[in-house]
């Protein structure tokens, strides 16, 4: 093991922002009172939450009263799907490449799954085929966590509303916050999930934006916090941290995105020179160059033929490079990617997937180090077999 850390797993969790730590520490020390109480200290804590709600609403482009604070992306997704299904019934539809936090609730309420095309975009014809007037909720993630592919939410929404005008749109936007203008979500979707740790905030806090709260039932009962939609004592430091992270992220989004996209392009272009290597979710331009316009800036997701990503990740880790492949299961083992399977990738090729996800802290030195180590690791594994 080397001491150097090359963090290429920002899509799993981003490094926490210094400004966030600064914002959280005094809350931990001083604002420990329960915000649901009635005394002065409680009211001070509640004030912090109200301010954070305003801040987050301003950054995301939604109304403050639409924000329901949760414990993170998974809870937000569960609340959206179970909450809507419980309130108004009908059929839920999600895409085959959704996070398990969307797929599993959808399956458990007997929902339908819409196919994607080979580049990861939702198959709009299939979507139109399976929507009917029973459809009450369509859940399509704005950015895929594995491949970084951005969905055309505007077009998807227009198709849904044409066939089933009353259907609600949910988008798991947890991967979008660091890179995209969040109006892409808040303008078109009725329910939006975000999670603080994906954009430099702490773990264990997130939000579901709910535009019409009469169409969502709570899935967790108790003290009736968050308009009765999410009972449970507020995570004051987490909520304050999330708002701070959202603000810093928004302020530096344009420059971070441009800088990281250029690093990513250099990384991906160089890695594509390795034989039998494929980049997911991209299109080829007429001149042979790669069009990554439908991927977020931080995403470099590749499949290497004749490679098993577990072995590759091991070798990268020994050189201080931390990345991931598909999602890990609870045992920590790499599971075959349902996302790549849905995009039509053969299991053999999907076994060689690698997600290098860059973030606001990524540097040119990081990319150079990866380019120094990774091609040799691939060559070693291919020559020795693993």
């Amino acid at each position: 093991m080397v001491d150097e850390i090359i963090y290429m797993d920002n899509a799993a969790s981003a490094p926490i922002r210094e400004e966030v730590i600064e914002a959280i520490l005094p809350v931990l020390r001083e604002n420990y009172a329960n915000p649901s109480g009635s005394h002065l200290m409680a009211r001070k804590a509640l004030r912090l939450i109200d301010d954070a709600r305003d801040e987050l609403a301003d950054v995301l482009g939604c109304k403050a009263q639409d924000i329901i604070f949760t414990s993170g992306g998974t809870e937000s997704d569960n609340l959206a799907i179970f909450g809507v299904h419980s309130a108004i019934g009908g059929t839920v539809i999600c895409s085959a490449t959704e996070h398990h936090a969307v797929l599993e609730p959808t399956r458990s309420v007997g929902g339908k799954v819409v196919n994607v095309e080979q580049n990861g975009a939702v198959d709009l014809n299939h979507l139109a085929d399976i929507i009917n007037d029973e459809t009450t909720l369509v859940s399509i993630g704005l950015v895929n966590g594995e491949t970084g592919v951005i969905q055309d939410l505007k077009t998807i929404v227009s198709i849904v509303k044409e066939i089933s005008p009353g259907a609600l749109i949910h988008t798991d936007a947890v991967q979008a916050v660091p890179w995209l203008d969040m109006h892409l979500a808040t303008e078109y979707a009725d329910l939006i999930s975000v999670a603080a740790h994906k954009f430099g905030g702490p773990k264990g806090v997130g939000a579901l934006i709910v535009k019409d709260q009469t169409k969502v039932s709570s899935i967790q009962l108790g003290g009736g916090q968050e308009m009765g939609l999410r009972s449970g004592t507020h995570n004051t430091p987490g909520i304050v941290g999330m708002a701070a992270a959202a603000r810093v992220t928004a302020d530096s989004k344009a420059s971070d995105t441009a800088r990281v996209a250029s690093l990513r392009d250099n990384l991906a272009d160089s890695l594509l020179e390795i034989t039998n290597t494929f980049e997911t979710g991209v299109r080829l331009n007429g001149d042979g160059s790669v069009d990554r316009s439908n991927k977020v800036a931080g995403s470099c997701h590749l499949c290497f033929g004749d490679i098993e990503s577990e072995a590759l990740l091991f070798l990268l880790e020994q050189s201080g490079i931390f990345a991931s492949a598909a999602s890990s299961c609870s045992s920590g083992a790499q599971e075959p990617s349902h996302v790549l399977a849905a995009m039509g990738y053969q299991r053999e090729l999907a076994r060689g997937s690698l997600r290098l996800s860059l973030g606001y802290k990524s540097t040119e030195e990081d990319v150079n180090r990866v380019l120094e180590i990774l091609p040799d690791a691939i060559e070693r594994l291919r020559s020795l077999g693993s």
Partner: protein
Amino acid sequence: MKGKQKILVAMSGGVDSSVAAAVLLDQGYEVVGVTMKLWGGTSDTGCCSVSDVIDARRVADQLGIQHHVFNFGDEFDTHVVDPYVDAHKRGETPNPCIECNRHVKFDKLFRRATALGFDLIATGHHAQIIQQPEGFRLRRSVDLKKDQSYVLHMLEENQLARLQLPIGNLTKDQVREIAASLSLQTAEKADSQDVCFISRTKGGRKRFLEQHMAMTPGQVIDSRGNRISNVPAVQMVTIGQRKGLGVSGEGEPRYAVDINVESATVTVGPKADLYYAETAIVDVQWIGEPITGALDIQTSAHGHTARARVADKIYWEEPHKKVASGQSAVFYEEGTVVGSGIVSRS
């Protein structure tokens, strides 16, 4: 750190492999632990469950070594689970642990370890590797009650040369003492079941096989072909079985002495019909030169040995209880594995 040999130790989350890792660390190796995730099914016993991965990880943390998880589920399905089901379809009784060792632990894991730059691999099996003038040989554990050389008999010399079995010279009690002295959290953990992908708590082997294959209803007959009763699944009957065949109660006890899936019959007979002077075998492999004299032969993972000669068949010195086809027969000379074969129907 330079000059240290790098060793990858397979840690199942049990006490044996925990202590194996500790012993290797003590011997000065650079040790990395790995838990193989082999089975995606619902089994919660043996080497495949999340809680075992947690145990292995915590022991690695206690020892201060790296711990990784490798998902060899595809290899396990292809080389262990599918052949296990197929063998039962033919009415055979295979030993899946042997196939797991052959294809997963000592093929896939060996190749992975080599590719990742390890010099050696290790497991927590109870067996010993000895170096004889003619090469490396596998020998029984000093703890004969826990000996696992039977399920490792397929190891070839080039594999034995790169394998360490650090607890083979320890008794199980000694293993537990070491674990306790290091306060390893697996020190008092119960021994695992043999067939890790079949949960005992959820209907066991019968339920597992019912979910994976069509059962053949059949007739129970005597040696003259007289029909006695029916059984719902010929494949679920085992040689020597007495209950559930409609033959209990009257007269001399009768046992299942032959099982034939093709003709859908189970033949029952008196105890004497279970004993044979010869056992047919195929795929005989010798480690070194074939031995024509009497050997100790073991035909199941926890079975006793019996003296016999091996030629075209196994010729037992004393009549030997019938062995289900598909089982491995492992040949020992003074506690050292010298060869093996697979028991066949005729």
